[in-house]
């Protein structure tokens, strides 16, 4: 590691000294490097899981009941031990780790977590536990980005943003879907983003996906049959899938959170036993129903190809839901992305198959409902409706599907949010001692705009052709300390009462304001701008003209610090309960 560190340090020094590359350009370049590194690591992660899986419960092993019974238990137990004693940073959700890096630890994600997630998740998922590799991949991306950011000695602000950039690379490489990766990070991790951040996230996700496709090919996660919306009446069936997806995702969140709370408060010996017992339960079910083992992409693939009847699809969804909840609560390493996709797919297929059998309006094959259902449960659990919509759109490459997916996923998201106010990751984060902000809440938090605080009209305005004495008189009458000065109501400056007083004392009271005083420029603001943005301006400009956007010469009002304080309730008499 030492020579590598030295190399990076030199590169970082060079790039800092280089006259051609500023911080923003270096950040963009680093995003590509992060994408490539994350892509390489995630490719290795993917292949290692596969190797592990081939040698345990896959293929021939799948037909040996003892192998299927014992491997998930052994894998879960060993992986748990590793996360407790060797890689403590590999415990918990990768999304929460990334958010913690962004909001709390100045972009620091321990590299120990990358190694730990790689090894522990490989053992746990490879041995058949029903978890997904995407969340670990996301954390690996964030960890690699954080390491590279430290090597490149980024500024504090950029260091904070580097973890989400890496997370996008990790998830993009895991899903092989760049748009989904970008949207997920935007929707779930970064509440506020600038064009520069978006550019970096896109670059890292794209470079990671390119690397993945270079090594693993550009096949999608599952083979998607042609989709056609046979009748618009079917949208009711898709709405039903969304409704049930929302209900079940809310229930699933509560179930997981409740089980996890119990597991956390269990005695230490039990904590070690739980992943083993969960693995045994999974293995016992997996003997008869191997579809629930592992991430479940093969199961989704089979469902998409109409292999199962509707009631078996519902059974698979239910079993996966319970087994994933049990393993996740027990502390078995691995993510929840793939299982939620599996559950949604089975749920969609089950309801679609049922409708297909009993309702004349449902004429599409069951596989169409499987495809639409894939993102439904995900939207409800992770509260990322846009990601879920684009994920299905990106994997199916079908434009026709967008309509039913939008209906289904949005309903699921809304129903789930109505029944369960906090998302699964948020509660899990709190259980792990991380009180992280919810992007959803941040997005929807009430915001004051200038319109809410400004004083309407022109009471604080003087004309520049008035005499200084007249202007001073008016200001005294108003009790104003500063005022705007308008020349023809289009060019705005501002003056203080003290300026007028000293001018009068100097015997220039008869002169016009424009002649006697040197004008001070102001910046125009508009009523729709946020009050926070106006606060930045109120330092150098104590009074701001609020102008109309559609009629640039029209003054709508004025804004001062007092107005802002009044709008926020500062200085008012209030008692804290």
């Amino acid at each position, binding site marked *: 590691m030492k020579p590598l560190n030295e190399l990076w340090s030199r590169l970082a020094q060079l790039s800092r000294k280089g006259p051609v590359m500023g911080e923003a350009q270096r950040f963009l370049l680093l995003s590509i*490097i992060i994408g*490539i*590194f994350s892509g*390489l*690591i995630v*490719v*290795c992660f993917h*292949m290692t899981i*596969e*190797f592990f899986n*081939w040698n345990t419960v*896959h*293929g*021939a092993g799948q037909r040996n009941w003892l192998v299927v019974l014992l491997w998930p238990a052994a894998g879960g137990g060993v992986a748990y031990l590793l996360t407790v004693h060797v890689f403590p940073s590999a415990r918990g959700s990768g999304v929460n780790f990334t958010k913690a890096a962004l909001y709390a630890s100045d972009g620091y994600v321990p590299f120990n977590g990358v190694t730990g997630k790689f090894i522990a998740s490989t053992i746990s998922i490879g041995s058949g536990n029903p978890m997904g590799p995407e969340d670990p991949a996301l954390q690996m991306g964030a960890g690699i980005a954080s390491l590279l950011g430290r090597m490149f000695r980024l500024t504090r602000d950029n260091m904070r943003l580097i973890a989400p950039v890496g997370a996008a690379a990790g998830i993009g490489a895991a899903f092989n879907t760049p748009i989904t990766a970008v949207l997920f990070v935007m929707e779930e991790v970064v509440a506020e983003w600038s064009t520069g951040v978006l550019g970096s996230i896109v670059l890292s996700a794209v470079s990671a996906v390119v690397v993945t496709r270079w*090594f*693993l*090919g550009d*096949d999608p996660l599952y*083979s*998607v*049959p*042609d989709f056609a919306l046979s009748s618009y009446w079917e949208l009711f069936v898709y709405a039903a899938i969304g409704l049930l997806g929302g209900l079940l995702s809310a229930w699933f969140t509560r179930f997981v959170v409740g089980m996890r709370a119990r597991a956390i408060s269990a005695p230490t010996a039990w904590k070690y036993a739980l992943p083993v017992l969960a693995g045994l339960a999974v293995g016992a079910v997996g003997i008869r129903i191997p579809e629930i083992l592992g991430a479940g992409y*093969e199961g989704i*693939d089979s469902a*998409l*190809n*109409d*292999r199962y009847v509707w009631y078996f699809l519902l059974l698979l969804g239910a079993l996966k839901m319970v087994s994933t909840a049990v393993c996740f609560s027990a502390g078995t390493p691995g993510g929840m992305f793939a299982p939620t996709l599996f559950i949604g797919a089975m749920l969609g297929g089950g309801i679609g198959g049922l409708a297909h059998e009993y309702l004349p309006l449902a004429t599409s*094959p069951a*596989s169409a409902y499987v495809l639409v259902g894939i993102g439904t449960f995900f939207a409800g659990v992770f509260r990322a409706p846009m990601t879920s919509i684009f994920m299905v759109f990106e994997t199916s490459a079908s434009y026709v599907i967008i309509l039913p997916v939008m209906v289904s996923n949005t309903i699921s998201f809304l129903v789930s949010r109505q029944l369960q106010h906090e998302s699964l990751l948020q509660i899990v984060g709190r259980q792990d001692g991380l009180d992280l902000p919810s992007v959803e809440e941040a997005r929807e938090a009430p915001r004051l705009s200038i319109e809410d605080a400004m004083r309407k009209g022109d009471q604080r305005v003087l004309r520049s052709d008035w005499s200084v004495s007249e202007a001073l008189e008016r200001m005294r009458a108003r009790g104003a300390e500063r005022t705007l000065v308008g020349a023809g109501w289009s060019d705005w400056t501002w003056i203080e009462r003290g300026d007028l007083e000293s001018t009068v004392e100097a015997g220039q009271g008869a002169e016009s304001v424009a002649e006697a005083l040197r004008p001070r420029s102001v910046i125009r603001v508009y009523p729709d701008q946020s009050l926070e943005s106006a606060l930045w301006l109120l330092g150098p400009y104590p009074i701001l003209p609020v102008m109309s956007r559609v009629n640039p010469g029209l003054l709508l009002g004025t804004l001062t610090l007092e107005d802002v304080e009044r709008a926020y309730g500062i200085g008012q008499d209030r008692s804290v309960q």
Partner: protein
Amino acid sequence: MAALFILTQLYAGYFHQERARLAGKHFSQASLLADAGDYALAIEQYRDALSYDRANLEYQLGFAEALYDSGGYQEAGFRLGQLRASDPTNAVVNRLLALLAQRFGRANEAIGHYRTAVYGRWPADPEQNRIRTRFELIELLEADGRNGAVIGELATLLEEERPDDSLRKLIGFRLLEAKADEAAERLFEELTQTIPKDAGVWEGLGRARLDRGDYRSALPAFERSLAIEDDEEVGRLRALCRGARDLDPNAPRLGLRRRLERSQALLKRTFAYLDYCVNPFGEAFVGPPAPGSYFELFEAARDQLGQRLPRRDQEQALEANLEMVHGLWDYRNSLCTNVWNEDPALLLLLGETAR
């Protein structure tokens, strides 16, 4: 980064190699099981092979075939649909899709798939597969009652595939079934030049001529066929031709008297045939209402038969007999609707003379 890239490249190389090995192992087992007809186990092995290498078209195709053969039509249809999307000109995929569409009664869709299969890309033995597929298409067209399309397909088959003689013989019989008698006759005539010792070719030629109503030229073809290989059906056809010949007053090298006798015999057979239609079971039966003109003609013919004519009037009588035969025969379609007497030789002869 370069070191990690190289390491990943090496690792990925090993990964793909191992994946291909494991997938290949399962695929081989699956193929053996499918060949042995054990489709359930073959499908399991195919699934295993695909779980290692999902993108492999050969595995996907084998799997879809096994699903089809085992009756898993629904899943087979989906798998084949995907295969077609990724490889639209794959003839095997299109043929299986055609068979599936045919099975579910979607004839037009099946015809489309068959045509794509015929002109598509066959991974092995393209000529034989194309011909087999064309015949499957022809059978579908026949079953769907599209006779013109059948003839067109057979003509295209002859034109494009350059079939060998045995296949051309088969095509000839298909043409006969499709009522393309002239085309069939031409084809069999050609075949009698190339494989003159094939009884089937002569039989085909005889049938083609017979279908055209030319029993005279059909007869030697049947006789030639029987000389090469005895066959009950061909023997029956020869007897039919001989029956028609023995009844034919216009047969070559017959004297006037002999022709007159035959015309009288023909008139009697026509009487008998039509009488059976009008009154098959004696007086009690009320047959279809015959027009008065028929009875007039009937009585006139009977009178004609009863007359003893001098030699100079015999030729005139012969013409009159034949005219009456045809006059009476014209009533056949209206009279012989419910019951009729079987007289294939008469039918053959009058059918020909009517032509």
